[in-house]
């Protein structure tokens, strides 16, 4: 069986106690352990008290980090305990990364010692989040140190929708001009969003973009307009998140959404396990596809039960 890095209750106690005193080192180290472990080695118990996990996604340069900084400010100053996971792409060539989201958030962290911000590299996973994001968000939730976890994805294209597997709420950040009629009918990211944000509303065309989005927004709760560099419109987004969280809790939607994710979790772990095993098996290039698949699955299954 796959081994598990279980977070025992006494380990969690230590994280919580230290975190409350403003010493983030133990929690940060625990995040590293999860980040560096393959998913089948990590098993994080469910938190007794959920916190609102909000994904912030959208095209590169739309202002996601600046907006996240402003949301930190808005939520924290309203008494909320905020954690942020900020994901940037890893270089496919070197495997390294420059994680630049934090730069935009630094000013909002000064004087707010209860805010925890962690940058993550995508490490080759697709869909604009890191493979470990889900488990790290769960660890943050389990710590009980936060009311809200904001996750900034890598600058995402239409099809990069993995954030829905992680977040209770997906905010799609666009800018004027990007949300025109053609874009809005496209499938993908637009479909999984729970609310749209037209950032850079100081630029021309914001009202029109918001109107297009509203027309296309079948299931979306709201379309917000923000100017992240000035902080305009950010409190409205915050209040919208409060309202949404209340309704998710009240009508049982959260439970349903989360149960759905716990179900798909096993499938994702199994997929990762098989891919990992497949990479380690010498396959005969002349064998039939059927035989090769058979070999991979048997070997994956054998190793798992070991």
């Amino acid at each position, binding site marked *: 069986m796959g081994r598990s890095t279980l977070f025992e209750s006494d380990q969690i106690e230590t994280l919580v106690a230290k975190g409350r005193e403003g010493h983030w080192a133990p929690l940060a180290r625990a995040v590293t352990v999860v980040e560096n472990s393959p998913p089948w080695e990590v098993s994080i118990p469910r938190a007794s008290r959920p916190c609102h996990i909000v994904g912030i996604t959208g095209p590169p340069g739309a202002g996601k980090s600046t907006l996240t900084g402003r949301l930190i400010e808005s939520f924290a100053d309203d008494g909320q305990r905020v954690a942020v996971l900020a994901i940037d792409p890893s270089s496919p060539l070197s495997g390294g990364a420059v994680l630049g989201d*934090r730069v935009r958030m630094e000013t909002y962290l000064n004087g707010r010692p209860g805010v925890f911000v962690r940058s993550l590299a995508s490490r080759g996973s697709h869909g604009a989040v890191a493979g470990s994001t889900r488990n790290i968000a769960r660890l943050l939730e389990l710590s009980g140190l936060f009311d809200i976890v904001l996750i900034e994805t890598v600058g995402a294209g239409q099809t990069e929708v993995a954030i829905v597997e992680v977040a209770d709420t997906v905010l799609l950040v666009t800018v004027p001009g990007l949300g025109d009629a053609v874009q809005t009918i496209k499938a993908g990211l637009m479909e999984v969003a729970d609310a749209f944000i037209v950032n850079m509303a100081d630029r021309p065309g914001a009202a029109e973009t918001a109107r297009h989005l509203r027309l296309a927004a079948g299931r979306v709760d709201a379309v917000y307009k923000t100017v992240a560099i000035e902080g305009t419109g950010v409190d409205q987004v915050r209040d919208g998140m409060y309202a949404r969280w209340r309704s998710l809790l009240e009508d049982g939607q959260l439970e349903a959404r989360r149960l759905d994710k716990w179900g798909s979790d096993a499938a994702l772990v199994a997929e990762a396990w098989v891919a990992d095993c497949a990479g380690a098996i010498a396959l005969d290039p002349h064998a039939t596809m059927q035989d090769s698949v058979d070999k991979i699955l048997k070997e994956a299954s054998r190793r798992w039960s070991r």
Partner: protein
Amino acid sequence: MTSATAGLPPLKVVIAKPGLDGHDRGAKVVARALRDSGMEVVYTGIYQSPESILRAVVQEDADVLGLSSLSGAHLEYARDLCALLKENDRRDVLFVVGGTIPPEDADTLKGYGVHEVFGPGTPTAELVAYISRNARQARLA
């Protein structure tokens, strides 16, 4: 990946610019060189205080702190940071300083707890090699 780091997760490096020093070219050159050697580099931006730099090191769980200073204020900032790292149980961080550091200051910096100093003109391959070789020593030990 060098043989020393093969199989291990990427090194996490925080590159920070303290105080009123807007010279960010060197910091960015170094950040890119480290990325190209497979490290994960968090850049904090300019105008950081020792407290905000410590916060980044702790929250990011960095293996390496690289301070870039071209304003002449390196002694004070490095001394404060060494004290903060000790107070916050992050003595295991590899702490390197670069920029316009007069050669005679290198020993003073090392006295505070800085591990190595890299002046103008250092080939990036040299600092990459130093960091790959020396990071995580304390953590693994």
